[in-house]
């Protein structure tokens, strides 16, 4: 399996961040960065990363299954993540998530037919001070109301 030169450079740099013999620690960032380029965590990708870090594919699979932000199935171009953890829940996160479900006609980790938008109900993303929070790819939206969410979603479709 081959990656872009940029990603290869990133991988090469990542393994230098850890002490000798502990290169497997680079697994999670490698999966995160690789996921963006590959689109999802495919079996070939897991095997390749495993080979590079001296892990068997099952060990990579274990990690992928554990972390909800690693997707074996490709998510949409815009991945909408609504937090329903405690702080957001108290400030209307659940209603916001329900609203997004109805609006998009999608459920948890589902992707629209055109592959543009996907939805995920996520745990705390560290934006409790500005709850309820929504994250689209790497962009944060704070103290989101249902109206604001509509605007955000409409914006994605353009």
């Amino acid at each position, binding site marked *: 399996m081959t990656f872009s030169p940029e990603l290869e450079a990133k991988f090469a740099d990542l393994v230098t961040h850890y002490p000798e013999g502990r290169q497997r620690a680079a697994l999670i960032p490698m999966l995160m960065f690789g996921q963006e380029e590959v689109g999802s965590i495919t079996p070939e990708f897991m095997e390749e990363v495993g080979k590079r870090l001296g892990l068997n594919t*099952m*060990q990579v*699979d*274990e990690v992928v*299954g*554990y972390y909800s932000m690693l997707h074996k199935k490709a998510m949409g171009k815009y991945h909408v993540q609504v937090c329903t953890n405690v702080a957001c829940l108290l400030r209307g996160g659940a209603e916001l998530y329900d609203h997004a479900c109805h609006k998009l006609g999608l459920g948890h980790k589902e992707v629209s037919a055109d592959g543009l938008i996907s939805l995920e109900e996520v745990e705390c993303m560290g934006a409790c001070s500005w709850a309820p929070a929504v994250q689209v790819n790497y962009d944060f939206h704070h103290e989101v109301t249902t109206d604001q969410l509509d605007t955000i979603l409409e914006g994605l479709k353009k």
Partner: protein
Amino acid sequence: MALVNVTINGVQVQAENGALLIEVAKQNGIEIPAFCYYEGMSLQAACRMCLVEVEKAPKLMAGCTLPVAEGMVVRTESEPVVKARKTTLEFLLSNHPLDCPVCDKGGECELQDMTFKYGVGESRFTEIKQHVPEKQWSPVVFYDAPRCILCYRCVRVCNEGMGVGALGISYRGVNAEIIPSNGDHLECDECGSCIDICPVGSLTSGIYRYKTRPWEMEHVGTVCTHCSNGCKTTLGVRNNEIVRGNNRDKSGINGEFLCVKGRYAFDFTQHPERLQTPLIRNAAGELEEASWSRALKLVAEKFKELAGPDFGVIGSTRTTNEESYLLQKFARTALGTASIDHHRTGDVVTLIDALSGKTGQLATTEELYTTKAVLVVASDLSQQQPLLANKIRANVRHHKAAVYAVTPGPVREDKIARKSIRVPEADSLAGVEQLREQLSKESELVIVFGDAIQGDKVRQLVAFGESLGIPVKYIALVDYANSRGALDMGVLPDLGPGYHATAPGRSLQQMLDDPKLAALWVVGANPLKGGKSLASTNAFVVVQDLFLTETAQRADVVLPAASAYEKNGTVTNVCGQVQRLKRGIETVGSKADLAIIGLLARGMGVNLGKVDADAIFAEIAASVPGYNQLPMPVILTGGAVQTHPVNGGVPPSSVPGIIASARDTLFTTGSLTRYSKILNEVLEKPGALYS
């Protein structure tokens, strides 16, 4: 290593500095309960069951990962500890179904035992238990996620013990469960170690599940009859039927290791095509059922008539030492022939000759675990010799042994090898030569070699080993359960018991090719396999076997024989270690080969002395060099003892190229596995795991 003083439950003990507390306690007769801790595997510290109280520590400590130190004071059964264990059990049981009455593990379940011991009668959890349907991962492995306590034992035994890595744990919290290698199914050795090692009834065996309760079985410790490694297996027998095979008591040379064949492939004993009555070829030329008395009378008469140099005898690679010994004795004396042979699969004979004048250079199974370096030549060990491969893996894991492989194709040993060399089998010795420098730097070495190394190549390999200047031991690989015994007992055309020269006779192939052959007596072998035919069309052929094999179909008389699980006696494994078989079941209508030989002798009026396994073994011990100083108490109690073969020149035996390994895989061993239904179901593509 320095010793430290540790106080456990008020008793002062001495232990190696840095040893794990759980082990130190065990050595002093104190049990610290644990689910995830498993001797020989990496540490996990996942179950929290081994918490103990350590003075000056702020909280309870996990005994499984705690190294002991000078002055440590530990309490393993104090009130806080017992309370913690109760709580841990309460947690483990919070989603564990209480279906013990229908669970296979009931009665031998570690979670059940611990719950019983610590009396966790009540639970504070009132939530509905999360149920997930049971999954079948292969014909032999079932997984019930709710019962799983996530101890990682199966994951580690598969990855570390087997070198396969087909299991993992995925997802989180209450959803966490074991996942198999290929999405919804397993692609692996199907060895079943994961089932054995599971402390609860989460992983269950396809052939054993719902068949019996553990306490309703008789547990018979005997030796697996498939490959030459001679793993001790404990058969679970109920109502004269083998329902499982495992070795949970870790006795024998294999500890708890068994491969797919040892664990499951005993079902050939109950195959519907199993012969249960003698067959005689009638006037119409068809095999017809006959009584034992008629068949034995006919064979005895014919044997008496045809005895002489043109009588051929083909012995077995599976029958016991006693049977092989008696067969060659009967052939050489009563039948007056020197033409006796068996299917030879490895050149032990030349190895013994090449080592003449030296002692103690034949390695034992255990030495693959203790020797600092191992060289594997021309053998796919993980496929063909699973126990030996397992010992080497454990050696690497525990002692950082140096492994070298010289093989024609990729092998599993590559993963752990310091260096792997790919050469065609014919060039194996040149490959070995490339390792000279590295090997001579090792402090000791065991060389394990396959059938590509035979004749002069064995001598060259031994010369190479001896030139390294370090202690070297050898193992000449052979294929079947008692291949080595057949050699030791002299089922050879030019060597008698203990490799003593005898008047030469025909080899196996020469017997098949000789048109003058008057009679052929085949005991537990299938020389006509693969479309071969007998040149002598008039030869009177008698076959003793479990099934109507290709050879049996050509026979004039077929006598139904008992399998290794149905008789007593001894067998000798690939390393020359003698172990005892113990009868587990009986199959109506069949007789042990020893009994058949005895009855034929009686029919011919030949006196072979007392024909029972113990008496013949005593005769072997008295007359066969190498078998004369075996400590009987060890053998009688299920142990293994290495023979001390002749220390002196062995006359060169056989024609070059006569030795051929059957190249069996993990899933085959000739005719026995052809009749194992379960083994044919789990058949995997050999080599699929090496990528």
